[in-house]
């Protein structure tokens, strides 16, 4: 938890530097903000892993099958990566690329959710017939 003030302070310093750098050299500004995002997310990943272990333990205790838990976790991961990419593209004022990245994420999430939807529909059909 010690690194939260560090990240916050670094963010303030980088914001001040970037406000100058954006008009001076756009590409370096994008690189700097991306590097900051990557470093913070990399240091955040172990904590997210602990959270996921907790979730897994709770699901095991509640006897929720992996079939239902796995799509949720996969969706969270896809959303995480997609929002990272699209936010950086938006930051560089490339709205089209950001939208395309988001669209790709949506399509992948739909594909991940497909087995669950299929199971619901099949159980519905079984109920009708």
């Amino acid at each position, binding site marked *: 938890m010690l690194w939260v003030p560090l990240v916050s302070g670094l963010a303030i310093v980088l914001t001040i530097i970037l406000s100058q750098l954006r008009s001076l050299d756009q590409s370096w500004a994008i690189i700097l903000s991306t590097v900051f995002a990557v470093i913070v997310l990399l240091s955040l990943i172990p904590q997210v892993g602990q959270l996921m272990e907790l979730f*897994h333990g709770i699901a095991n205790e509640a006897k929720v099958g992996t079939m239902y838990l796995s799509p949720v976790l996969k969706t969270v991961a896809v959303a995480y990566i997609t929002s990272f990419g699209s936010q950086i593209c938006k930051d560089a004022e490339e709205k089209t690329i950001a939208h395309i990245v988001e669209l790709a994420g949506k399509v992948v999430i739909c594909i991940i959710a497909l087995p669950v939807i299929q199971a619901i529909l099949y159980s519905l059909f079984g109920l009708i017939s």
Partner: protein
Amino acid sequence: MTDLTPIYKIAGLGILVAVLNIFLVQAERKEQAQMLSLAGVVIVLLWLVQMVSQLFENVEAVFRW
């Protein structure tokens, strides 16, 4: 703990490229200056791509169940 080495590395390279850029512009070599800044951006981009791939691998490892 956060590892801040990449930020220092990139800041150092950025300052170096900026100073050399000023020299080259003063010496009336605009083409070379442009090439130098492009080379700096490409080098940093290579580091960045490695870091991003590491991040994605970590995310994949965490959310795999």
